[in-house]
Protein backbone atom coordinates (compact mmCIF):
# COMPACT_ATOMS: atom_id res chain seq x y z
CA UNK A 1 0.00 0.00 0.00
CA UNK A 2 2.88 2.31 0.84
CA UNK A 3 4.36 1.69 -2.53
CA UNK A 4 1.16 2.71 -4.30
CA UNK A 5 1.02 5.89 -2.25
CA UNK A 6 4.62 6.70 -3.12
CA UNK A 7 3.91 5.99 -6.73
CA UNK A 8 0.90 8.31 -6.73
CA UNK A 9 2.90 11.03 -4.99
CA UNK A 10 5.66 10.51 -7.51
CA UNK A 11 3.25 10.88 -10.40
CA UNK A 12 1.87 14.00 -8.76
CA UNK A 13 5.29 15.62 -8.32
CA UNK A 14 6.19 14.36 -11.78
CA UNK A 15 3.13 16.07 -13.26
CA UNK A 16 4.36 19.38 -11.86
CA UNK A 17 7.82 18.76 -13.31
CA UNK A 18 6.22 17.80 -16.61
CA UNK A 19 4.15 21.00 -16.75
CA UNK A 20 7.28 23.07 -16.12
CA UNK A 21 9.39 20.98 -18.48
CA UNK A 22 6.89 21.61 -21.28
CA UNK A 23 7.73 25.31 -21.05
CA UNK A 24 11.46 24.60 -21.30
CA UNK A 25 11.15 22.19 -24.14
CA UNK A 26 8.74 24.28 -26.23
CA UNK A 27 10.88 27.38 -25.92
CA UNK A 28 13.96 25.36 -26.74
CA UNK A 29 12.27 23.72 -29.71
CA UNK A 30 11.09 26.98 -31.20
CA UNK A 31 13.48 29.73 -30.11
CA UNK A 32 16.48 27.36 -29.73
CA UNK A 33 17.34 28.83 -26.35
CA UNK A 34 17.37 27.65 -22.74
CA UNK A 35 15.14 29.96 -20.76
CA UNK A 36 16.67 29.65 -17.31
CA UNK A 37 14.28 32.31 -16.03
CA UNK A 38 11.45 29.84 -16.49
CA UNK A 39 11.73 28.54 -12.90
CA UNK A 40 11.31 32.04 -11.52
CA UNK A 41 8.10 32.53 -13.43
CA UNK A 42 6.79 29.63 -11.28
CA UNK A 43 7.68 31.67 -8.21
CA UNK A 44 5.85 34.71 -9.59
CA UNK A 45 2.80 32.51 -10.17
CA UNK A 46 2.99 31.30 -6.59
CA UNK A 47 3.22 34.83 -5.18
CA UNK A 48 0.45 36.26 -7.36
CA UNK A 49 -1.98 33.54 -6.26
CA UNK A 50 -0.87 34.14 -2.67
CA UNK A 51 -1.50 37.89 -2.90
CA UNK A 52 -4.92 37.43 -4.47
CA UNK A 53 -6.14 34.97 -1.82
CA UNK A 54 -4.32 36.03 1.37
CA UNK A 55 -4.05 39.80 0.82
CA UNK A 56 -7.09 40.55 -1.32
CA UNK A 57 -9.27 37.79 0.10
CA UNK A 58 -10.55 36.63 -3.26
CA UNK A 59 -11.49 33.01 -4.02
CA UNK A 60 -8.87 30.51 -5.26
CA UNK A 61 -10.34 30.37 -8.77
CA UNK A 62 -9.68 34.09 -9.22
CA UNK A 63 -6.18 33.60 -7.83
CA UNK A 64 -5.39 30.91 -10.37
CA UNK A 65 -6.71 32.95 -13.29
CA UNK A 66 -4.77 36.00 -12.08
CA UNK A 67 -1.56 34.01 -11.70
CA UNK A 68 -1.89 32.57 -15.20
CA UNK A 69 -2.71 35.97 -16.70
CA UNK A 70 0.19 37.77 -15.00
CA UNK A 71 2.71 35.07 -15.84
CA UNK A 72 1.58 34.82 -19.45
CA UNK A 73 2.07 38.56 -19.83
CA UNK A 74 5.36 38.37 -17.95
CA UNK A 75 6.64 35.64 -20.27
CA UNK A 76 5.80 37.66 -23.35
CA UNK A 77 7.39 40.81 -21.89
CA UNK A 78 10.57 38.95 -20.88
CA UNK A 79 10.88 37.59 -24.40
CA UNK A 80 10.30 40.98 -26.03
CA UNK A 81 12.67 42.92 -23.80
CA UNK A 82 15.42 40.43 -23.00
CA UNK A 83 15.59 37.77 -25.70
CA UNK A 84 14.21 39.27 -28.89
CA UNK A 85 17.03 41.82 -29.26
CA UNK A 86 19.45 38.87 -29.08
CA UNK A 87 17.78 36.76 -31.75
CA UNK A 88 20.90 36.86 -33.90
CA UNK A 89 23.38 36.76 -31.00
CA UNK A 90 25.44 33.68 -30.09
CA UNK A 91 23.54 31.25 -27.86
CA UNK A 92 25.93 31.86 -24.96
CA UNK A 93 24.86 35.53 -24.81
CA UNK A 94 21.21 34.49 -24.68
CA UNK A 95 21.94 31.90 -21.99
CA UNK A 96 23.67 34.48 -19.79
CA UNK A 97 20.82 36.91 -20.35
CA UNK A 98 18.38 34.23 -19.23
CA UNK A 99 20.36 33.74 -16.02
CA UNK A 100 20.30 37.52 -15.59
CA UNK A 101 16.53 37.61 -16.01
CA UNK A 102 16.29 34.80 -13.45
CA UNK A 103 18.20 36.83 -10.85
CA UNK A 104 16.24 39.93 -11.76
CA UNK A 105 12.94 38.17 -11.03
CA UNK A 106 14.25 36.72 -7.75
CA UNK A 107 15.51 40.09 -6.59
CA UNK A 108 12.36 41.86 -7.64
CA UNK A 109 10.43 39.33 -5.54
CA UNK A 110 12.83 39.98 -2.63
CA UNK A 111 12.09 43.70 -2.88
CA UNK A 112 8.34 43.30 -3.08
CA UNK A 113 7.71 40.37 -0.76
CA UNK A 114 10.95 40.24 1.33
CA UNK A 115 13.04 37.14 1.90
CA UNK A 116 10.84 35.76 4.67
CA UNK A 117 9.13 32.57 3.57
CA UNK A 118 5.36 32.91 3.63
CA UNK A 119 3.03 30.11 4.48
CA UNK A 120 0.71 29.36 1.64
CA UNK A 121 -2.70 27.85 2.19
CA UNK A 122 -3.58 25.26 -0.40
CA UNK A 123 -5.87 26.37 -3.19
CA UNK A 124 -7.62 23.03 -3.11
CA UNK A 125 -9.17 22.11 0.19
CA UNK A 126 -11.65 19.35 -0.32
CA UNK A 127 -11.62 16.06 1.54
CA UNK A 128 -8.82 13.61 0.70
CA UNK A 129 -9.82 10.56 -1.23
CA UNK A 130 -9.79 7.52 1.04
CA UNK A 131 -9.54 4.05 -0.45
CA UNK A 132 -9.27 0.49 0.91
CA UNK A 133 -10.81 1.19 4.36
CA UNK A 134 -8.74 4.31 4.91
CA UNK A 135 -5.50 2.48 4.27
CA UNK A 136 -4.80 4.71 1.30
CA UNK A 137 -5.50 8.41 1.58
CA UNK A 138 -4.79 10.69 -1.39
CA UNK A 139 -4.75 14.40 -0.65
CA UNK A 140 -6.81 16.89 -2.60
CA UNK A 141 -3.66 18.59 -3.95
CA UNK A 142 -2.37 15.30 -5.32
CA UNK A 143 -5.64 14.60 -7.08
CA UNK A 144 -5.86 18.08 -8.56
CA UNK A 145 -2.21 17.96 -9.64
CA UNK A 146 -2.52 14.65 -11.43
CA UNK A 147 -5.78 15.66 -13.13
CA UNK A 148 -4.34 19.06 -14.14
CA UNK A 149 -1.26 17.35 -15.46
CA UNK A 150 -3.33 15.03 -17.65
CA UNK A 151 -5.54 17.88 -18.92
CA UNK A 152 -2.58 20.15 -19.69
CA UNK A 153 -0.68 17.44 -21.53
CA UNK A 154 -3.71 16.36 -23.55
CA UNK A 155 -4.64 19.93 -24.44
CA UNK A 156 -1.11 20.84 -25.44
CA UNK A 157 -0.71 17.73 -27.55
CA UNK A 158 -3.95 18.58 -29.37
CA UNK A 159 -2.96 22.20 -29.88
CA UNK A 160 0.43 21.30 -31.26
CA UNK A 161 -0.66 18.49 -33.53
CA UNK A 162 -4.07 19.65 -34.70
CA UNK A 163 -4.35 23.42 -34.78
CA UNK A 164 -3.05 26.05 -37.14
CA UNK A 165 -1.07 27.66 -34.35
CA UNK A 166 0.53 24.35 -33.45
CA UNK A 167 1.49 23.73 -37.06
CA UNK A 168 3.02 27.17 -37.27
CA UNK A 169 5.00 26.37 -34.12
CA UNK A 170 6.30 23.11 -35.56
CA UNK A 171 7.16 24.84 -38.82
CA UNK A 172 9.15 27.54 -37.04
CA UNK A 173 10.85 24.93 -34.90
CA UNK A 174 11.96 23.02 -37.95
CA UNK A 175 13.01 25.80 -40.31
CA UNK A 176 12.56 29.42 -39.30
CA UNK A 177 13.42 30.89 -42.69
CA UNK A 178 11.24 28.53 -44.69
CA UNK A 179 8.36 29.21 -42.28
CA UNK A 180 8.71 32.94 -42.85
CA UNK A 181 8.65 32.41 -46.58
CA UNK A 182 5.36 30.58 -46.11
CA UNK A 183 3.95 33.68 -44.45
CA UNK A 184 4.33 32.58 -40.84
CA UNK A 185 5.42 35.35 -38.46
CA UNK A 186 8.35 33.99 -36.46
CA UNK A 187 8.19 36.70 -33.77
CA UNK A 188 4.51 36.10 -33.22
CA UNK A 189 5.01 32.36 -32.98
CA UNK A 190 7.83 32.77 -30.47
CA UNK A 191 5.65 35.14 -28.40
CA UNK A 192 2.84 32.60 -28.35
CA UNK A 193 5.27 29.91 -27.24
CA UNK A 194 6.52 32.04 -24.37
CA UNK A 195 2.93 32.90 -23.43
CA UNK A 196 1.89 29.24 -23.29
CA UNK A 197 5.05 28.18 -21.44
CA UNK A 198 4.71 30.94 -18.85
CA UNK A 199 1.00 30.31 -18.36
CA UNK A 200 1.85 26.69 -17.63
CA UNK A 201 4.58 27.81 -15.23
CA UNK A 202 1.95 29.80 -13.29
CA UNK A 203 -0.22 26.68 -13.00
CA UNK A 204 2.83 24.74 -11.82
CA UNK A 205 3.54 27.50 -9.28
CA UNK A 206 0.05 27.22 -7.79
CA UNK A 207 0.23 23.42 -7.66
CA UNK A 208 3.73 23.43 -6.18
CA UNK A 209 2.90 25.98 -3.49
CA UNK A 210 -0.27 24.06 -2.65
CA UNK A 211 1.67 20.82 -2.26
CA UNK A 212 4.68 22.28 -0.41
CA UNK A 213 2.98 25.19 1.35
CA UNK A 214 5.85 27.63 1.74
CA UNK A 215 6.67 30.33 -0.78
CA UNK A 216 9.85 32.39 -1.02
CA UNK A 217 11.69 34.25 -3.77
CA UNK A 218 13.98 31.32 -4.55
CA UNK A 219 11.25 28.69 -4.58
CA UNK A 220 11.37 28.40 -8.36
CA UNK A 221 15.02 27.57 -8.87
CA UNK A 222 15.13 23.95 -7.70
CA UNK A 223 11.91 22.85 -9.47
CA UNK A 224 13.16 24.80 -12.48
CA UNK A 225 16.40 22.86 -12.57
CA UNK A 226 14.61 19.56 -11.98
CA UNK A 227 12.17 20.31 -14.78
CA UNK A 228 15.02 21.29 -17.07
CA UNK A 229 16.60 17.95 -16.19
CA UNK A 230 13.29 16.27 -16.99
CA UNK A 231 13.19 18.00 -20.37
CA UNK A 232 16.74 16.83 -21.15
CA UNK A 233 15.92 13.38 -19.80
CA UNK A 234 12.97 13.06 -22.18
CA UNK A 235 14.80 14.70 -25.07
CA UNK A 236 14.86 18.48 -25.17
CA UNK A 237 12.66 19.92 -27.88
CA UNK A 238 10.28 16.98 -27.69
CA UNK A 239 6.86 17.63 -26.12
CA UNK A 240 6.01 13.99 -25.31
CA UNK A 241 9.60 13.66 -24.08
CA UNK A 242 9.08 16.46 -21.54
CA UNK A 243 5.92 14.78 -20.27
CA UNK A 244 7.55 11.37 -19.94
CA UNK A 245 10.75 12.84 -18.50
CA UNK A 246 8.83 14.89 -15.92
CA UNK A 247 6.74 12.01 -14.68
CA UNK A 248 9.66 9.57 -14.52
CA UNK A 249 11.76 12.11 -12.69
CA UNK A 250 9.03 12.69 -10.10
CA UNK A 251 8.52 8.97 -9.56
CA UNK A 252 12.25 8.26 -9.29
CA UNK A 253 12.67 11.12 -6.82
CA UNK A 254 9.84 10.04 -4.51
CA UNK A 255 10.62 6.31 -4.70
CA UNK A 256 14.31 7.00 -4.16
CA UNK A 257 13.52 9.19 -1.16
CA UNK A 258 11.23 6.55 0.35
CA UNK A 259 13.27 3.40 -0.19
CA UNK A 260 16.89 4.38 -0.64
CA UNK A 261 17.74 7.61 1.09
CA UNK A 262 15.97 10.89 1.56
CA UNK A 263 19.27 12.78 1.52
CA UNK A 264 20.40 11.16 -1.67
CA UNK A 265 17.15 11.48 -3.62
CA UNK A 266 18.43 14.34 -5.78
CA UNK A 267 21.69 12.52 -6.38
CA UNK A 268 19.74 9.46 -7.52
CA UNK A 269 17.69 11.59 -9.91
CA UNK A 270 20.76 13.10 -11.51
CA UNK A 271 22.58 9.75 -11.65
CA UNK A 272 19.70 8.32 -13.63
CA UNK A 273 19.89 11.33 -15.94
CA UNK A 274 23.61 10.78 -16.50
CA UNK A 275 23.12 7.09 -17.21
CA UNK A 276 20.32 7.79 -19.70
CA UNK A 277 22.38 10.44 -21.47
CA UNK A 278 25.37 8.10 -21.68
CA UNK A 279 23.25 5.45 -23.34
CA UNK A 280 21.05 7.77 -25.39
CA UNK A 281 22.59 11.24 -25.68
CA UNK A 282 19.49 12.81 -27.20
CA UNK A 283 17.29 11.77 -24.25
CA UNK A 284 14.51 9.20 -24.18
CA UNK A 285 12.39 10.57 -27.01
CA UNK A 286 14.84 13.07 -28.48
CA UNK A 287 15.34 13.15 -32.18
CA UNK A 288 18.61 12.49 -33.86
CA UNK A 289 20.06 15.76 -35.00
CA UNK A 290 20.75 15.75 -38.68
CA UNK A 291 23.57 17.98 -39.74
CA UNK A 292 22.53 20.15 -42.64
CA UNK A 293 24.83 19.63 -45.55
Amino acid at each position, binding site marked *: MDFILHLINGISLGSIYAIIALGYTMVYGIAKMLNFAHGDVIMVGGYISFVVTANLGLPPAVAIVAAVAVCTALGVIIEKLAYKPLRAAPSLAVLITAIGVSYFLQNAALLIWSSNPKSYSSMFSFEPLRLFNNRLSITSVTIVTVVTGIVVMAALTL*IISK*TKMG*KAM*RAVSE*DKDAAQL*MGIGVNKTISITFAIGSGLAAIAGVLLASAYPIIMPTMGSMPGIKAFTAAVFGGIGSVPGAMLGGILLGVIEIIGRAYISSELSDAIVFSVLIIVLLVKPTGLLGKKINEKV
Partner: protein
Amino acid sequence: MSKMVPVPSAGIIPERDLNSSPILEISHLGITFGGLVAVEDFNLVIGRTEISGLIGPNGAGKTTVFNLLTKVYQQTKGAILLDGVDTKGMTTVQVNQLGIARTFQNIRLFSSLTVEDNVKIGLHNQYKYDTLSGILRLPPYWKAEKQAKERVRELLSIFNMEHMAKYKAGSLPYGAQRRLEIVRALATNPSLLLLDEPAAGMNPSETEELMANIRKIRDAFQIAILLIEHDMSLVMGICEGIAVLNYGKIIAKGTPEEIQSNPEVIEAYLGKQKEDGSDA
Protein backbone atom coordinates in the same frame (compact mmCIF):
# COMPACT_ATOMS: atom_id res chain seq x y z
CA MET B 1 3.41 30.89 -76.81
CA SER B 2 2.52 34.48 -77.38
CA LYS B 3 4.88 36.93 -79.02
CA MET B 4 7.32 38.81 -76.79
CA VAL B 5 7.02 42.58 -77.02
CA PRO B 6 9.14 45.37 -75.56
CA VAL B 7 7.70 47.49 -72.70
CA PRO B 8 8.76 51.02 -71.65
CA SER B 9 10.73 49.95 -68.57
CA ALA B 10 13.33 48.28 -70.78
CA GLY B 11 12.26 44.68 -70.90
CA ILE B 12 10.04 42.30 -72.77
CA ILE B 13 6.81 40.65 -71.73
CA PRO B 14 4.41 38.34 -73.56
CA GLU B 15 1.96 40.17 -75.81
CA ARG B 16 -1.05 38.67 -73.97
CA ASP B 17 0.06 40.37 -70.73
CA LEU B 18 0.23 43.81 -72.33
CA ASN B 19 -3.27 44.90 -71.32
CA SER B 20 -2.41 44.64 -67.62
CA SER B 21 0.53 46.09 -65.75
CA PRO B 22 3.53 43.78 -65.19
CA ILE B 23 3.46 41.72 -62.00
CA LEU B 24 7.09 42.44 -61.23
CA GLU B 25 9.22 45.43 -62.12
CA ILE B 26 12.76 45.47 -60.82
CA SER B 27 14.83 48.55 -61.46
CA HIS B 28 18.50 49.19 -60.70
CA LEU B 29 18.45 46.54 -57.95
CA GLY B 30 21.75 46.14 -56.17
CA ILE B 31 23.22 44.63 -53.02
CA THR B 32 26.71 44.67 -51.59
CA PHE B 33 27.99 42.49 -48.76
CA GLY B 34 30.77 44.49 -47.17
CA GLY B 35 32.81 45.45 -50.20
CA LEU B 36 31.56 42.61 -52.38
CA VAL B 37 29.05 43.57 -55.02
CA ALA B 38 26.76 40.55 -55.30
CA VAL B 39 24.10 42.04 -57.57
CA GLU B 40 24.38 45.29 -59.47
CA ASP B 41 22.01 47.35 -61.61
CA PHE B 42 19.57 44.48 -62.07
CA ASN B 43 16.54 45.36 -64.20
CA LEU B 44 13.73 42.96 -65.06
CA VAL B 45 10.07 43.09 -66.01
CA ILE B 46 7.80 40.08 -65.75
CA GLY B 47 4.31 39.85 -67.25
CA ARG B 48 1.33 38.65 -65.26
CA THR B 49 1.24 35.15 -66.73
CA GLU B 50 4.79 34.93 -67.98
CA ILE B 51 7.14 32.04 -67.37
CA SER B 52 10.61 33.51 -67.25
CA GLY B 53 14.03 32.17 -66.50
CA LEU B 54 17.05 33.50 -64.67
CA ILE B 55 20.18 31.70 -65.72
CA GLY B 56 23.89 32.14 -65.32
CA PRO B 57 27.03 30.34 -64.18
CA ASN B 58 27.43 29.21 -60.56
CA GLY B 59 27.93 32.12 -58.18
CA ALA B 60 26.45 34.63 -60.62
CA GLY B 61 23.99 35.89 -58.00
CA LYS B 62 20.78 34.16 -59.06
CA THR B 63 19.75 32.93 -55.64
CA THR B 64 20.73 36.32 -54.21
CA VAL B 65 18.13 37.88 -56.52
CA PHE B 66 15.54 35.45 -55.12
CA ASN B 67 16.63 36.33 -51.60
CA LEU B 68 16.23 40.02 -52.43
CA LEU B 69 12.77 39.43 -53.85
CA THR B 70 11.69 37.50 -50.75
CA LYS B 71 13.39 39.98 -48.40
CA VAL B 72 15.79 37.49 -46.89
CA TYR B 73 18.17 40.33 -47.79
CA GLN B 74 17.25 44.00 -48.09
CA GLN B 75 18.58 45.67 -51.19
CA THR B 76 21.17 48.42 -50.86
CA LYS B 77 20.05 50.01 -54.14
CA GLY B 78 17.12 50.07 -56.51
CA ALA B 79 13.47 49.13 -56.25
CA ILE B 80 11.31 46.02 -56.53
CA LEU B 81 7.69 46.67 -57.45
CA LEU B 82 5.34 43.74 -56.99
CA ASP B 83 2.05 44.53 -58.69
CA GLY B 84 3.02 48.20 -58.46
CA VAL B 85 3.80 48.07 -54.71
CA ASP B 86 7.33 48.92 -53.62
CA THR B 87 8.51 46.15 -51.29
CA LYS B 88 11.38 48.12 -49.83
CA GLY B 89 11.63 47.62 -46.06
CA MET B 90 9.01 44.87 -46.00
CA THR B 91 9.57 41.64 -44.11
CA THR B 92 9.61 38.17 -45.63
CA VAL B 93 6.15 37.50 -44.21
CA GLN B 94 4.78 40.72 -45.69
CA VAL B 95 6.05 40.03 -49.22
CA ASN B 96 4.68 36.53 -48.96
CA GLN B 97 1.27 37.93 -48.10
CA LEU B 98 1.65 40.40 -50.95
CA GLY B 99 2.07 37.49 -53.34
CA ILE B 100 5.59 36.09 -53.66
CA ALA B 101 6.17 32.42 -52.88
CA ARG B 102 9.27 30.36 -53.50
CA THR B 103 10.92 26.97 -53.41
CA PHE B 104 14.53 26.29 -52.46
CA GLN B 105 17.62 25.08 -54.22
CA ASN B 106 18.26 22.58 -51.42
CA ILE B 107 14.83 21.29 -50.44
CA ARG B 108 13.54 22.85 -47.27
CA LEU B 109 10.35 21.04 -46.41
CA PHE B 110 9.23 20.58 -42.82
CA SER B 111 10.44 17.03 -43.10
CA SER B 112 9.13 15.63 -39.81
CA LEU B 113 5.62 16.84 -40.64
CA THR B 114 3.18 15.08 -42.93
CA VAL B 115 2.68 16.10 -46.54
CA GLU B 116 -0.76 17.43 -45.62
CA ASP B 117 0.58 19.52 -42.74
CA ASN B 118 3.30 20.98 -44.95
CA VAL B 119 0.68 22.24 -47.37
CA LYS B 120 -1.50 23.44 -44.49
CA ILE B 121 1.39 25.55 -43.26
CA GLY B 122 1.43 27.14 -46.69
CA LEU B 123 -2.27 27.84 -46.23
CA HIS B 124 -1.58 29.44 -42.83
CA ASN B 125 -2.82 32.88 -43.84
CA GLN B 126 -5.69 31.61 -46.00
CA TYR B 127 -7.89 30.15 -43.31
CA LYS B 128 -8.69 31.58 -39.93
CA TYR B 129 -10.27 30.67 -36.63
CA ASP B 130 -9.73 32.15 -33.21
CA THR B 131 -7.43 30.53 -30.69
CA LEU B 132 -10.24 29.58 -28.33
CA SER B 133 -12.07 27.63 -31.04
CA GLY B 134 -8.79 25.92 -31.80
CA ILE B 135 -8.18 24.87 -28.20
CA LEU B 136 -11.76 23.84 -27.44
CA ARG B 137 -12.33 22.52 -30.97
CA LEU B 138 -15.52 24.50 -31.49
CA PRO B 139 -17.45 24.45 -34.79
CA PRO B 140 -15.39 27.28 -36.40
CA TYR B 141 -12.32 25.08 -35.95
CA TRP B 142 -13.88 22.08 -37.66
CA LYS B 143 -15.29 24.17 -40.48
CA ALA B 144 -11.98 25.90 -41.21
CA GLU B 145 -9.98 22.70 -40.87
CA LYS B 146 -12.33 20.91 -43.25
CA GLN B 147 -12.01 23.65 -45.86
CA ALA B 148 -8.24 23.62 -45.44
CA LYS B 149 -8.16 19.87 -45.88
CA GLU B 150 -10.15 20.10 -49.11
CA ARG B 151 -7.86 22.83 -50.41
CA VAL B 152 -4.85 20.65 -49.57
CA ARG B 153 -6.33 17.81 -51.60
CA GLU B 154 -7.00 20.12 -54.52
CA LEU B 155 -3.45 21.41 -54.46
CA LEU B 156 -1.91 17.98 -54.10
CA SER B 157 -3.96 16.78 -57.06
CA ILE B 158 -1.92 19.05 -59.36
CA PHE B 159 0.86 16.51 -59.08
CA ASN B 160 -1.40 13.51 -58.34
CA MET B 161 -0.02 13.36 -54.83
CA GLU B 162 -3.29 13.03 -52.86
CA HIS B 163 -2.48 9.50 -51.77
CA MET B 164 0.71 10.74 -50.10
CA ALA B 165 -1.12 13.18 -47.78
CA LYS B 166 -0.39 11.22 -44.61
CA TYR B 167 3.24 10.39 -45.37
CA LYS B 168 6.04 12.22 -43.64
CA ALA B 169 7.47 14.79 -46.02
CA GLY B 170 11.02 13.64 -45.28
CA SER B 171 10.21 10.08 -46.32
CA LEU B 172 9.13 10.99 -49.86
CA PRO B 173 11.34 10.26 -52.84
CA TYR B 174 13.43 13.19 -53.98
CA GLY B 175 11.30 14.13 -56.99
CA ALA B 176 8.12 14.07 -54.90
CA GLN B 177 9.78 16.33 -52.31
CA ARG B 178 10.53 18.87 -55.03
CA ARG B 179 6.93 18.69 -56.25
CA LEU B 180 5.65 19.07 -52.68
CA GLU B 181 7.73 22.23 -52.27
CA ILE B 182 5.98 23.70 -55.29
CA VAL B 183 2.57 22.70 -53.90
CA ARG B 184 3.43 24.24 -50.53
CA ALA B 185 4.50 27.47 -52.21
CA LEU B 186 1.29 27.53 -54.28
CA ALA B 187 -0.73 27.13 -51.09
CA THR B 188 0.29 30.64 -50.00
CA ASN B 189 -1.73 31.93 -52.97
CA PRO B 190 1.05 33.75 -54.81
CA SER B 191 0.85 35.94 -57.87
CA LEU B 192 4.55 35.34 -58.53
CA LEU B 193 6.09 31.94 -57.94
CA LEU B 194 9.87 31.66 -57.66
CA LEU B 195 11.35 28.25 -58.39
CA ASP B 196 14.99 27.75 -57.43
CA GLU B 197 16.35 24.93 -59.60
CA PRO B 198 13.14 22.91 -59.71
CA ALA B 199 14.67 20.22 -61.92
CA ALA B 200 17.84 19.72 -59.88
CA GLY B 201 18.45 16.03 -59.40
CA MET B 202 15.60 14.97 -61.66
CA ASN B 203 16.03 12.50 -64.50
CA PRO B 204 15.08 13.53 -68.06
CA SER B 205 11.60 12.01 -67.94
CA GLU B 206 10.88 13.67 -64.59
CA THR B 207 12.12 16.98 -66.01
CA GLU B 208 9.82 16.53 -68.99
CA GLU B 209 6.89 16.00 -66.66
CA LEU B 210 7.91 18.99 -64.54
CA MET B 211 7.90 21.24 -67.61
CA ALA B 212 4.38 20.20 -68.45
CA ASN B 213 3.35 20.78 -64.85
CA ILE B 214 4.90 24.25 -64.67
CA ARG B 215 2.85 25.23 -67.71
CA LYS B 216 -0.22 23.60 -66.19
CA ILE B 217 0.24 25.58 -62.97
CA ARG B 218 0.62 28.84 -64.88
CA ASP B 219 -2.53 28.14 -66.89
CA ALA B 220 -4.60 26.98 -63.91
CA PHE B 221 -3.54 29.68 -61.46
CA GLN B 222 -2.88 32.47 -63.99
CA ILE B 223 0.32 33.47 -62.19
CA ALA B 224 3.80 34.49 -63.21
CA ILE B 225 6.66 32.07 -62.65
CA LEU B 226 10.32 33.00 -62.41
CA LEU B 227 12.73 30.12 -62.30
CA ILE B 228 16.42 29.59 -61.79
CA GLU B 229 17.62 26.54 -63.65
CA HIS B 230 20.75 24.95 -65.03
CA ASP B 231 18.90 22.44 -67.16
CA MET B 232 18.93 24.22 -70.53
CA SER B 233 16.35 21.94 -72.12
CA LEU B 234 13.89 23.02 -69.43
CA VAL B 235 14.79 26.72 -69.61
CA MET B 236 14.68 26.89 -73.38
CA GLY B 237 11.60 24.69 -73.49
CA ILE B 238 9.25 26.64 -71.24
CA CYS B 239 10.61 30.12 -70.58
CA GLU B 240 9.20 32.96 -72.64
CA GLY B 241 11.73 35.52 -71.48
CA ILE B 242 15.20 34.78 -70.15
CA ALA B 243 17.68 36.94 -68.27
CA VAL B 244 21.31 35.89 -68.03
CA LEU B 245 23.27 36.90 -64.97
CA ASN B 246 27.04 36.90 -64.66
CA TYR B 247 29.05 38.38 -61.79
CA GLY B 248 25.86 39.98 -60.44
CA LYS B 249 25.03 41.80 -63.66
CA ILE B 250 22.56 41.04 -66.38
CA ILE B 251 24.55 40.37 -69.52
CA ALA B 252 21.65 39.47 -71.79
CA LYS B 253 17.87 39.46 -71.91
CA GLY B 254 15.57 38.07 -74.53
CA THR B 255 13.65 35.15 -75.90
CA PRO B 256 15.19 31.66 -75.78
CA GLU B 257 16.26 32.00 -79.43
CA GLU B 258 17.98 35.32 -78.83
CA ILE B 259 19.77 34.02 -75.73
CA GLN B 260 21.00 30.86 -77.43
CA SER B 261 22.71 32.84 -80.14
CA ASN B 262 24.07 35.62 -77.92
CA PRO B 263 27.90 35.62 -78.04
CA GLU B 264 28.27 37.13 -74.56
CA VAL B 265 26.17 34.34 -73.05
CA ILE B 266 28.18 31.69 -74.80
CA GLU B 267 31.33 33.32 -73.51
CA ALA B 268 30.01 33.44 -69.92
CA TYR B 269 29.19 29.76 -70.01
CA LEU B 270 32.07 28.39 -72.02
CA GLY B 271 34.85 30.90 -71.44
CA LYS B 272 36.49 33.23 -73.91
CA GLN B 273 38.25 31.73 -76.87
CA LYS B 274 41.82 33.01 -76.99
CA GLU B 275 43.47 33.73 -80.30
CA ASP B 276 45.75 30.73 -79.99
CA GLY B 277 42.69 28.57 -79.37
CA SER B 278 43.24 27.64 -75.69
CA ASP B 279 40.70 28.33 -72.91
CA ALA B 280 41.02 31.55 -70.94
